[in-house]
């Protein structure tokens, strides 16, 4: 019985998982116009070239909605070059009867420290025991613009080539995500975004990211489709950021996730280093 209900959940939630990054999830994924860490690779790759340092991130969600079968893990790495940032990442999801994995290669270009454009290539495989395997190749595109020093606009298209598994259409989400991000003060940004998945209702997403002190960040947000709240904290010490996020789905309950990001040659806080790099006072 549990297997049955799990399969049901898998098929209904499966490919509509939330994009990774404990920070992203604690902001209810409203961060399309913020995209300032290595996990941007999976949502808005254009944000990667805001980061002028090397960064590795791992993310783990042990039991979404209390089901260990839905556990998923991501890893990502980004390297800044003179011609733009290049990143590579991977994902694994599921359990022995049902497994998905994905390899992502991303590139982001910084034009005059104001415009950022990015693309990501995803190689996604799915295997269901006793049914067989399938794989798909799809592309994501993203952009990020600084309209002023404290106001950003961002968007991303995911799966623009409408790749799918099996004979059914749209098994992999085809979606557009667009939003704004505003730095109210140096340590606080407000993010809002809308996301339209081809198959689902438009979702409004909102999140606030606040650095209470240099070492501690507080985040929270919500989205309306599905109705959920999120909150999280980040501990930033030296080259390590440890992030925790939780969100609650009105019908399915709580989910916890953690992430770890290691930044090389980053001397200041994330926001400050990016500001310095982009020449914002």
């Amino acid at each position, binding site marked *: 019985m549990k297997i049955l209900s799990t399969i049901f959940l898998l098929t209904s939630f499966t490919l509509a998982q939330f994009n990774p990054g404990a920070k992203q999830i604690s902001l209810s994924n409203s961060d399309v116009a913020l995209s300032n860490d290595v996990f941007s690779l999976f949502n808005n790759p254009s944000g990667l070239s805001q980061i002028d340092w090397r960064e590795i991130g791992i993310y783990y969600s042990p039991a979404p909605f209390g089901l260990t079968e839905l556990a998923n893990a991501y890893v990502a790495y980004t390297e800044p070059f003179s011609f733009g940032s290049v990143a590579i990442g991977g994902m694994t999801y599921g359990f022995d009867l049902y497994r998905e994995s994905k390899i992502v290669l991303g590139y982001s270009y910084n034009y005059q420290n104001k415009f950022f454009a990015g693309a990501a290539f995803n190689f996604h495989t799915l295997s269901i025991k006793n049914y067989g395997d399938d794989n798909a190749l799809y592309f994501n595109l993203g952009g990020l613009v600084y309209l002023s020093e404290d106001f950003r606009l961002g968007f991303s298209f995911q799966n623009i080539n409408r790749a799918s598994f099996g004979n059914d259409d749209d098994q992999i989400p085809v979606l557009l995500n667009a939003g704004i991000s505003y730095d*109210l*003060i140096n*340590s*606080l940004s407000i993010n809002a975004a809308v996301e339209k998945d081809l198959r689902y209702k438009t979702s409004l997403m*909102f999140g*606030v990211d*606040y650095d*209470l002190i240099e070492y501690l960040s*507080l985040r*929270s947000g*919500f989205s*309306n489709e599905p*109705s*959920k*709240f999120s*909150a999280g904290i980040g501990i930033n010490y030296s080259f390590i950021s440890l992030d925790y996020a939780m969100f*609650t789905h*009105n*019908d399915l309950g709580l989910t916890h996730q953690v992430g770890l990001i290691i930044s090389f040659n980053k001397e200041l806080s994330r926001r400050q280093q990016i500001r310095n790099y982009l020449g914002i006072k």
Partner: protein
Amino acid sequence: MMKIVFNILFLTLSPFFFINSQIIDSTEIKTEETLDEILDESFVEEDNSDLYNAVEELILNPIDLNTADVFELQKIPGIESSTAEIILSYRNRFGPFYSVNELYAMRELDRDLINRIIPFLKVDKESIKFDSTLFQEDFSEARILPSDIKIYLRSRFGNDLQTRKGFEDGIYLGNKLRAYNRLFVKYSKQIQAGILIDKDAGERDIDDFKSFHLNVKNYGVLNNLVLGDYVLEFGQGLMLWSPYGFSKGADAIFPVKRKGKILKPYTSATEYDFMRGVAATIDYSGFSFTAFYSSKKIDANVDSVTNKITSTPKTGLHLTENDLMKVNRASEKIFGGRISYKYDKFFNAGMSAYQSKFSNEFESTSIYDLSGSNFRYYSFDYDVNLSPVNIFGEFVYNETSVASLNGIIITPLNNFIITASIRSYPRNFINLHGFAFGEQSGNTNNEFGIYYGIKWRSNFGLINFYYDQFRFPFETFENPVPSSGNEFYLSYSKNFFNKTQLNLRFKSERKDVTENLNNIKTVVERIRNSYRAELMYDISSRLRMKSRIEYNTYEISKAEIKENGILIFQDLRYVISKSLLAYGRIIFFETDSFNSAVYEFENDLTGVLTNLAMYGEGLRWYLMIRYKPFDFLTLSMKYAETYKPNEKSLSSGNNLIRNNIDNRISFQIDLAY
């Protein structure tokens, strides 16, 4: 000697000299404007007069800027812990305040905010006070009333001009008159005695509801003592609270955190959920101890065979023979106490407990309902202030389960406040005297919810928004199965030109409701949206205009119900002279049915605030006049009329009116001497 006589003459005549020295009704206008900021018309018709009284009381008993602490200042609407801290750090740096206007010198505080909070604050100038010792020596026996005694009398009468079915058929025992009389006698700010009698339309006795209290404050270590009727407000209201409290409203931050007054005399006419007995609070170096005892008769339906209580009606209406049978059928005895500890500005926590014993046992219909006659509650509440973060909450244990509410308010900037709170009220947690934040107007049972709100006084206007998600894990009165819902609110207000304010508001509520689909009861989603635009314009300092247009939609798509309603009103406030004020409003409404009703608060006689549902097709208008011939006397009158041209009758049941007009006239006298 000559000079003294002159002084006395001057003193006795001073009320006449100063008649026109103040703008009329400043308390009333400030109360109304403050409530306008906090309250929002909900989708339920309700009487909010108690909230009016609560705000009015705050204004009449302002908080002393020089003695208040962080927790006390937060009782004022608009002051969060961070604002309170700014005010206190200013006091610590520059010494005591000489005037509340010194607040304007603080650059950290927004001018708008200061205007809003000043009515709630005072600076006690004990030293600058008129030297009265001289008179006491010479003329003490000559004075009829010691100047320290103050009398406040409020007397209100109202009458429906149409006769309702209950009166025509003789079902209602009394006459149509509504009467409310309240008298307070205060002696030197420390002692107050009060008596209140109230009669609803259709009740037989003018003193159908009676209330009395004697209150002594700040007498040595004795902080507060009440004999008679009182209410207790502890923590976040999960265990003990007055029968009213603020709920989700126009201000996204203020209602989330309850600021309990611990103990206060009961001064309102809601006829249930207060205590009758004795209670006292003693303060001792950071600690505060409260003990209370109450014994009160309550209205109840008692099964004649089992002698068990089947229900406890809380309307307070005793109109028919049937109602009178329930009066005082049972009684409740309560005793309990509280210990709290306050540490500087950082920390305030308390532990409380009470036991309640009813004269009869409760008849339970399900395993989760009240059973037995003895109930015990234990609570822990806290309020921790680590600027710019404020954490607060309460846990209550009723010997079967634990209910809790925890919240956080973060103020990264003075004009930007975020709050979040989580509430969890289990199905088997049944509380007798709480009123906590939530979706069920105070009820702390069968609900889990998360609230998220932001208030931002930005350069381009004031933004308030909240998102509240709630779930009822077990069946409710409306739904036979677990249900859920959420609510979204966004408002924006801005002064576009000098003296012109635009308010925009959007509210959306989704909730599971039960509908009959093909004769099968099905739980379906109901969506209610409300769009409002409002323009306030001060034509002159005497004349204010307010125009509103509101459009509501009500949709249950599965049941193919889609309705809408619209309301337009024009409102005028005219200060004719310094002692005469007139309010008028004309409301046009057109809605498909009661479902899509549009709600509006209206200015009423002082101390009355109702949220009225406008539905069907018609118009309503009212005129209110407030006249203050002397400083100590206010007379007011209101005439209101609802007219629905296409109807043959209004309202229903015993309240049916066989006419298409519903009109009422009321008078009030306020005496403060």
